[in-house]
């Protein structure tokens, strides 16, 4: 973990997380209030700083105080006074804000001792949560731009490429292509007009790795981009970032300005004669534009439709010129590899998958957030040790990696080492780092339907099997989840899936059937339950479930009666309430609001429960 030398001058440095997650929890007010109170009390030697995402979004807003790495979580604005009065003035910790181990209840004051952090190995996220992303000085203080200097003054482009090649770095955008090899191809392509593009389109719905990195440590990505540009011989770079990421865009703009001021961007960078300029392009909301040839079309101002490869962009890309496209995380890895050497990097991970991988761990997991682990780690360790297991003590059902292009890994695969090859063997893909954890209350057929809604809508329409095939698959999945499935539907889905895979030009269509195929592969019986018995075992598919109020448990408290949005519940004080199934829209509100001590509302599928037809008085 990067320590900032300047800390020594201050007694305390307070880092308030201003990542998107913590901001939505109110961290901006915490930051302002800390500054204000420290100012008005004239406490000296305290620096109130802010950082990007610490990764532990679940426990946000997060305030971290150096020295000691004291970690306060779930901080509220009201807690600021205590932090200032106790910690910053008297040096006493505010124990009640410490992280509590969910099972042992033990309090853990320092972030490095919290299992969520202690088992991670942070290379790509090395600076996230430790430096102020809007201050290049913070980045310089942790050795930022040293690798660029080294490259520009001591290394030839060939040496840079050879260093990256021997590190074994593979692209973190999904396909895992060897970065050194790609750079070499582009380097050797003739012509002196070349481009490098940072792919920050992050299309996987449910993943936020790239966004968090750009928000927390934009300079690492930009430094990597400059090194790549030097290696391939590009003088112009583009960052293609989703418009839905306003904070990332703002911090990128600030970073670019500061780079120019420090002479890291523009003409004759650091007196080396190397010129480089960067433009930001905002994506306009099309998942397929994450695909490299579609992305290029979009920068050229066209509809973002993929084209056939070869020629690969490294030979003929933007405006027909040799172009390198790399993911945010790939580029962020480059400066460290240059600084620490390829030997160090290739010592991490497995034989074919080197280095670390960042996951956005979400879904039904106790510790949601951003984690970075060495390649080859077992799924079990990721879910149970780092992720803290399933929230609410439920049972693990599956983990989905690779988003709409990936697949799910069932409980029998908890021992699977996570790397490119094993995930592919299991029918999924590494993807760019989304990992959604599902428990028993998640229906895999519903998940497959969900992903197909997404890919079906995002198919650019060029290839018929992708455009029409995904639509057909969706129609079948919809009828299964509605209880209208017919025997043979699963086989039909498998046939269609293979056609879509084979008949599509780009990765979108080639991988769109993966979520369906893996859920069929590991949970076939669940599909059959829906089709043959019209039952959703996870109690998710709306058309297959019903809600009942158990007469022996209902206390006539009227809470469900008052909350039902469609007036489907009849009842009254001290009467047993009854749900009108004709009117019920199965929103589940009654289930949620019924007080836990009564638990009178139940959700069932494939069976009926005998209840009174009309409200009747509660029998004592």
């Amino acid at each position: 973990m990067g320590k900032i030398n300047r800390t020594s001058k201050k007694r305390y440095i307070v880092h308030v997380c201003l990542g998107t997650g913590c901001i939505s929890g109110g961290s901006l007010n915490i930051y302002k209030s800390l500054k204000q109170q420290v100012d008005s009390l004239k406490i000296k030697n305290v620096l109130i700083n802010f950082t990007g995402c610490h990764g532990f979004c679940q426990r946000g807003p997060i305030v971290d105080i150096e020295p000691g790495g004291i970690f306060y979580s779930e901080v509220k604005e009201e807690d600021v006074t205590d932090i200032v009065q106790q910690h910053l003035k008297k040096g006493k910790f505010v124990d009640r804000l410490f992280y509590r181990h969910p099972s042992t209840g033990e309090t853990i004051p320092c972030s490095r001792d919290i299992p969520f952090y202690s088992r991670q190995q942070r290379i790509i996220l090395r600076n996230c949560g430790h430096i102020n992303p809007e201050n290049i000085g913070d980045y310089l203080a942790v050795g930022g731009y040293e690798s660029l200097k080294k490259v520009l003054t001591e290394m030839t482009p060939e040496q840079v490429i050879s260093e990256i090649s021997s590190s074994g770095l593979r692209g973190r955008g999904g396909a895992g292509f060897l970065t050194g090899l790609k750079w070499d191809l582009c380097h050797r392509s003739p012509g002196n007009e070349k481009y490098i593009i940072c792919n920050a389109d992050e299309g996987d719905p449910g993943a936020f790795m790239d966004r968090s990195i750009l928000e927390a440590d934009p300079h690492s990505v930009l430094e990597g981009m400059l090194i790549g540009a030097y290696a391939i011989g590009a003088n112009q770079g583009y960052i293609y970032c989703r418009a839905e990421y306003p904070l990332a865009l703002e911090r990128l703009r600030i970073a670019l300005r500061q780079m120019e001021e420090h002479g890291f961007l523009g003409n004759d960078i650091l007196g080396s004669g190397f010129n480089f300029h960067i433009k930001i392009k905002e994506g306009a909301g099309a998942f397929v534009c994450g695909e490299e040839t579609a992305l290029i079309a979009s920068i050229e101002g066209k509809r973002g439709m993929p084209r056939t490869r070869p020629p690969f962009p490294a030979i003929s890309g933007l405006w027909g010129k040799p172009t390198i496209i790399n993911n945010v995380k790939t580029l962020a890895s480059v400066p460290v590899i240059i600084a620490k050497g390829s030997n160090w990097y290739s010592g991490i991970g497995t034989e074919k998958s080197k280095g670390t991988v960042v996951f956005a761990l979400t879904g039904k997991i106790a510790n949601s957030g951003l984690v970075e682990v060495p390649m080859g780690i077992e799924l079990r360790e990721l879910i149970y040790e780092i992720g803290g297991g399933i929230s609410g003590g439920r049972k693990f059902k599956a983990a989905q990696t690779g988003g709409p292009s990936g697949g799910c890994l069932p409980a029998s695969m908890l021992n699977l080492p996570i790397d490119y090859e094993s995930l592919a063997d299991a029918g999924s893909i590494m993807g760019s780092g989304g990992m959604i954890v599902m428990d028993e209350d998640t229906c895999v057929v519903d998940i497959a339907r969900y992903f197909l809604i997404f890919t079906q809508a995002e198919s650019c329409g060029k290839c018929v099997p992708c455009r029409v095939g995904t639509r057909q698959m969706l129609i079948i999945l919809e009828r299964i989840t509605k209880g209208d499935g017919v025997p043979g539907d699963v086989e039909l889905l498998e046939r269609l899936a293979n056609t879509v895979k084979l008949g599509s030009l780009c990765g979108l269509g080639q991988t769109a059937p993966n979520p369906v195929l893996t859920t069929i592969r590991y949970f076939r019986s669940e599909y059959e339950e829906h089709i043959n018995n019209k039952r959703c075992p996870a109690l998710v598919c709306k058309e297959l479930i019903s809600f009942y109020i158990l007469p022996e448990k209902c206390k006539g408290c009227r809470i469900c009666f008052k909350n039902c949005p469609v007036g489907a519940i009849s009842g009254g004080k001290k009467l047993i309430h009854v749900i009108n199934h004709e009117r019920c829209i199965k929103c589940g509100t009654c289930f949620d609001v019924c007080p836990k001590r009564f638990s009178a509302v139940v959700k069932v599928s494939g069976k009926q429960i005998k209840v009174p037809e009309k409200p009747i008085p509660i029998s004592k």
Partner: protein
Amino acid sequence: MFITKLVEIFNEYKGEKGAVIPILQKVQDKLGYLSQEVISEIAKFSRMSETEVFGVASFYAQFRFTRCGDHVIRVCLGTACHVSGGERILDEVTRELGVSPGETTEDYKFSLERVACLGCCALAPVMVVDKTVYTKMKLPKVRGVLQTYGENK
């Protein structure tokens, strides 16, 4: 007049290759949506046909061709939000407002959209009104959130 605003934007992009998407983005930012007249002006400036400009604009989900409401409500249906009940939240908003995603209420108070991941997955389900993010949404909270905006305007 919108023409002067357009000219200002066009001036920034004179001579730049493939600038039609950033132009469309800036124009929508300034004018709220892309009317037919606006598209036709952009086509003239970019030396493209109107069909081509519309073809590009309609490819991307970001662009709107009708006026939107005073407040834009976005309900997240990213994967994390989906498994935590995002669809139920969307249903509830739809019911409260009486419009489907992609539509605007008759009084132009609210536009409703569905989005895929807002980046606060750890706090799912999430909805955003204008720039304010509402996390860990529950059905009974929806009405309250809408009311705060209903009364302002």
